[in-house]
């Protein structure tokens, strides 16, 4: 079976028109020996009923947010997704359209992307945003490369308090390029300004700072930015869009490039992807930016509309000289983020940030009262690290028994921290969830 729309009679008629005996004749340019080899071994086709059942069975082997309370963050977050987001985003006209190369037949997609770009500017306080990149980690990698191209320098200062997942990808992306990533140690969960200043000089293209950082700690972003700018280096901020309802916007402390993972904006965790890479920067970098951009224009009758623009930056025109190799991006997820921001609006976005902050602080306080120590006393937003009496893995296995998804095992990337776990609260965690966690962790 396939989803083919041709009948046997159609095939016969088409073959006749083409002047062949059978469709197999269209493959005579492939050597018979090769064709004979092509046994795939995938087995028999599954009917829709069978495929759905098999998948449902696999789904049932996962512990999921519908039955478990998730205290795991570290880059993917269990924020509430209003029903309106999937209801609109999955409409066929959006989901089954291609990249809007043909502007006239793609005004829906194009306007959405323009609105997405604008919403990101409003949220981040930056001057421009692109149409999306793959994810937060690759967005950081692209930011480094763009910073290097624009400054013509090839050193980047990268705090270890930046997500290890992002740093891994940045390393992958720069391995073939002339670009050195130098790590900056953290102290008490934060990146010391002094450590950055120590390494900073006129050869540094950019200083990266994550706010709040991987540990949830709030960094001295303003001072770090000023230090960077003083040496002509760019400030690249990794932000979390779910915090920006109350946390100062990267634009307000003069970020040159601000990138993020957009998953918190109405996108399911879905085992890590698809999410969406957010890429914002100063407008002066427009011609160096990676990925697609949508701009306004007019049609032949002078009516306003939208179109892809500055395409000469891109691979399909500039080929090896393109600002990036990205082609397909995460447009449908950008649509979800757009609908999410439109529906949540100013008050909703603020509410998510406030509640996430407050619930995390309540949880941290309750844990402290119950004898579970935080790793550091640093100011944090909605993620924070706690000390554990035994390996996180064991604690998490225990929590899973009680339908709680525990925190991230910090010993995996920071063995020096010993047994420790990064916890997170979003607005989805109820006081009841938190009290249960506290009870189990302090038992």
């Amino acid at each position, binding site marked *: 079976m396939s989803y083919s729309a041709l009948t046997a009679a159609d095939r016969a008629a088409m073959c006749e028109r*083409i002047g062949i005996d059978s469709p197999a004749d269209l493959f005579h340019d492939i050597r018979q020996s090769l064709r004979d080899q092509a046994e795939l071994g995938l087995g028999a086709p599954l009917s*829709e009923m069978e495929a759905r059942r098999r998948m449902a069975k696999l789904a049932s082997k996962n512990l999921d947010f519908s039955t478990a309370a998730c205290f795991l963050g570290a880059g993917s977050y269990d924020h509430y997704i209003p029903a309106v987001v999937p209801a609109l985003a999955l409409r066929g006209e959006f989901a089954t359209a291609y990249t809007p190369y043909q502007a*006239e037949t793609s005004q829906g997609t194009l306007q959405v992307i323009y609105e997405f770009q604008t919403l990101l500017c409003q949220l981040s306080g930056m001057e421009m945003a692109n149409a999306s990149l793959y994810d937060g980690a690759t967005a950081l990698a692209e930011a480094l490369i763009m910073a290097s191209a624009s400054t013509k320098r090839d050193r980047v200062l990268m705090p270890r308090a930046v997500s290890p997942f992002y740093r891994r990808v940045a390393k992958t992306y720069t391995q073939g390029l002339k670009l050195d990533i130098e790590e900056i140690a953290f102290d008490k969960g934060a990146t010391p300004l002094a450590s950055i200043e120590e390494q900073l000089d006129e050869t540094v293209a950019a200083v990266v700072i994550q706010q709040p950082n991987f540990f949830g700690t709030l960094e001295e972003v303003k001072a770090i930015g000023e230090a960077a700018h003083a040496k002509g280096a760019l400030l690249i901020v990794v932000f979390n869009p779910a915090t*920006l309802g109350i946390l100062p916007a990267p634009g307000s402390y003069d970020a040159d490039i601000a990138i993020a993972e957009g998953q918190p904006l109405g996108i399911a965790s879905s085992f890590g992807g698809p999410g969406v890479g957010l890429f914002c920067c100063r407008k002066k970098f427009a011609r160096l930016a990676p990925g697609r951009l949508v701009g*306004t224009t007019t049609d032949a009758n002078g009516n306003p509309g939208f179109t892809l623009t500055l395409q000469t930056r891109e691979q399909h025109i500039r080929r090896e000289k393109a600002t990036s190799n990205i*082609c397909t991006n995460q447009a449908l997820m950008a649509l979800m983020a757009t609908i999410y921001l439109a529906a949540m609006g100013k008050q909703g976005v603020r509410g998510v940030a406030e509640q996430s902050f407050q619930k995390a602080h309540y949880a941290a306080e309750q844990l402290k009262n119950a004898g579970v120590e935080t790793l550091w006393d640093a100011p944090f937003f909605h993620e924070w690290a706690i000390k554990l009496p035994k390996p996180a893995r064991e604690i998490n296995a225990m929590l899973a028994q009680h339908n709680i998804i525990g925190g991230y095992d910090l010993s995996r990337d920071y063995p020096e921290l010993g047994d420790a776990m990064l916890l997170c609260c979003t607005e989805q965690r109820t006081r009841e969830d938190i009290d249960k966690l506290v009870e189990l962790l302090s038992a």
Partner: protein
Amino acid sequence: MSQPILFELSQPGLFNDYLPPLDVPTSDYPFEARAELPLPELDEHSVVRHFTRLSQINFSIDTHFYPLGSCTMKYNPKLNEAVAAMPGFAGVHPLQDAATCQGWLEVLFEAQNVLAKIAGLHDASVQPLAGAQGEFAGLLMIRAYHEARGEATQRRRIVVPDSAHGTNPASAARCGYDVTSVHSNEAGCVDIEAMRAAIGPDVAAVMITNPNTLGVFETQLVELCEIAHENGALVYMDGANMNAIVGQVRPGDMGIDVMHYNVHKTFSTPHGGGGPGAGPVAVRDILIPFLPSPHVVKDEDGAFAWDFNRPESVGALHAFGGNAGVILRALTYIWRHGDSGIKEISSDAVLAANYILARLKDTYETANENVCKHECVLSLANFKTEYGVTALDVAKRLPDYGFHAPTMYFPTIIKESLMIEPTETETKATLDEFCDAMIAIAEEARTNADLLHNAPHTLSVGRMDEANAARCLNLCWIQEAL
């Protein structure tokens, strides 16, 4: 009818109460809370109406024949969406302990396996997020391979035919490679002698697209692979066009060392107006050590796990394990088909393209001499000369007939090209209506060229002035601007 911009619909004070009242005591912020938050304020109804209306001014597979060459705009089964929406898949965190996500790990493991099998190769990574990143991952693996053999500094060049997609040279550049572009022969195929000349001891790899971007099967691919291998170079295959050959021939059997799939093409995951996709890479055994990290493995007890312990890996390409939700849809699709169904896909896709070619070749010049594979390429060069009608004009006129445009001006080696890929999921009636429209448009070109120059006439907007967008760059709505 155009739809106002979202921000003009905003009314100060409107909000939707998605969140409950806070149920915990409050703490003071250890920072100065931001004062301004210039986001829009809308009631939910306005949000629904806005995006519903916007959706309606789009063309899409669900509403229109969408024969964009090289894009494989086939039907995207609704089942795949139902599967991806299951809470047991959608609501799972990528960093959960393996014991609590065995179902997901099995999905990714199975996907690695079936994708290796379809390629006729030995393993696959499902981490790459799109075709371009698949290329990047593949070239990094090639680089790591040469490095392991101490030849990294020696092999600085990637050889790419001039008909290749732009991501091929761009991805090579991202790996720090120099790109050597090799001219195609008159038939638009790899010129085996030019290739032989270009491939030497300084070449890391050849990137080849098969079928190529003219929709032609590269019959000399086996020889090309031999030449490359003799020279110590590896061969990367851009699998964007796999819909033409999937199940008919396995790239690995032809000598390919590494390839990517565009699952948002061949395996029907929705393109979403530009993404997300996934670009899994399949590799020959010699490249397995270099596969991206983490990789999904199965232990003796049948338990699945992430393997991060891959010292020779090229590293991570994504914060987590890739676009898992996209891979899930692709696996559902592949399981639905099985061996026999997969073969039927390519057979019918190629049949449909050849049928269009047969019906249009008397009306239009074509780049395809004999049979094509999944797509055919027309050239409007003679129309341009004779009637002043370009590929662009035809592309803009087709929507008035209810059809999306083909890909235009690609591959660049054909002048005024239109690249038509019908896929296997259109009825013969639709193919015929499309051909009828193309023939009618050819007639219009002869008799009323301005009708084409001014097209489209029936959409929400007329022909867009793209140059103006770059001249007066406006990427972000600002209150005062309107």
